[in-house]
């Protein structure tokens, strides 16, 4: 399958690969997986005291589209509030990366990972 230039760029030069301390109260971790293709994605976000995401890291095992989707969202997440982060839609990711229909589930995985990371962070913070 032919990947778009943007997918190839993220796949060859993934941004923000790595790990944050999952026990840090300012860090939220989202782990999701796609049973149909076996892809696994870990997305972590770190917020500052004003509730703005100042860092995001990912680790993904999967196809080029899954890696590109997670790499792209780590770029998008920085500077956003948690509510803004939770509004990122898979359709925007798929559009930006020009994903073909059979690879849409990779962008769904990235959206679900963001939601899981935000939920994890919110559960850590006092209401």
């Amino acid at each position: 399958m032919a990947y778009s230039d943007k997918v190839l760029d993220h796949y060859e030069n993934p941004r923000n690969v790595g790990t944050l301390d999952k026990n840090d109260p300012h860090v939220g971790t989202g782990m999701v997986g796609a049973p149909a293709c076996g892809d696994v994605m870990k997305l972590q976000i770190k917020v500052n005291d004003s509730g703005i995401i100042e860092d995001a890291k990912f680790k993904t095992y999967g196809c080029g589209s899954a890696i590109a989707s997670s790499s792209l969202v780590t770029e998008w997440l920085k500077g956003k509030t948690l509510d803004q982060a939770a509004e990122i839609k898979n359709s925007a990711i798929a559009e930006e990366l020009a994903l073909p229909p059979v690879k849409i589930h990779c962008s769904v995985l990235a959206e679900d990972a963001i939601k899981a990371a935000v939920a994890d962070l919110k559960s850590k913070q006092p209401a």
Partner: protein
Amino acid sequence: MGLLQRNYFELLGLPTQFEVDLALLDQHYRQLQSEVHPDRFVTASANDRMQSMQVATQANEAYQTLKNSTARARYLLQLQDIETLEESNTAMPAEFLMLQMEWREAIDDASSAKDITALDTLLAEIKRMAKSLTQELSVQFSDNAYERASESVRKLSFIDKISADIHRAIEQLEN
């Protein structure tokens, strides 16, 4: 009831349940295939010929589905109108996903180190997990715990995929 209206278990003369006697499955499948073999329908009416062919196709699908425990479980859930959502349900227990990640890292490490023994060891570990998940499925079906069975199918789906990937990695090292 016509043969084509039966579910896969009924078609192959087996009880509709997770436990399957694989020897009996083989035997009933071969028997049905010989009953509907095209050679027997050379002089039959066009209608009978077509129907025998449909049964033969369905028997083949039934056999492929029932002999594999993951596919069998998925099919049993479908009979209960439960979809296993392997395309869209991405929420898995975190520790299971962590394990997937560790296994993926181990495959990468072993492949770069050209360590076939490590891959074989990993494959054995994964087979043990598949076996215990299959045993869990059996309990879940006897308890009618379909939601949990559905999650077990999703886990087995990961396991089937990673097993295939390890086999491929081993083949590449052997060539």
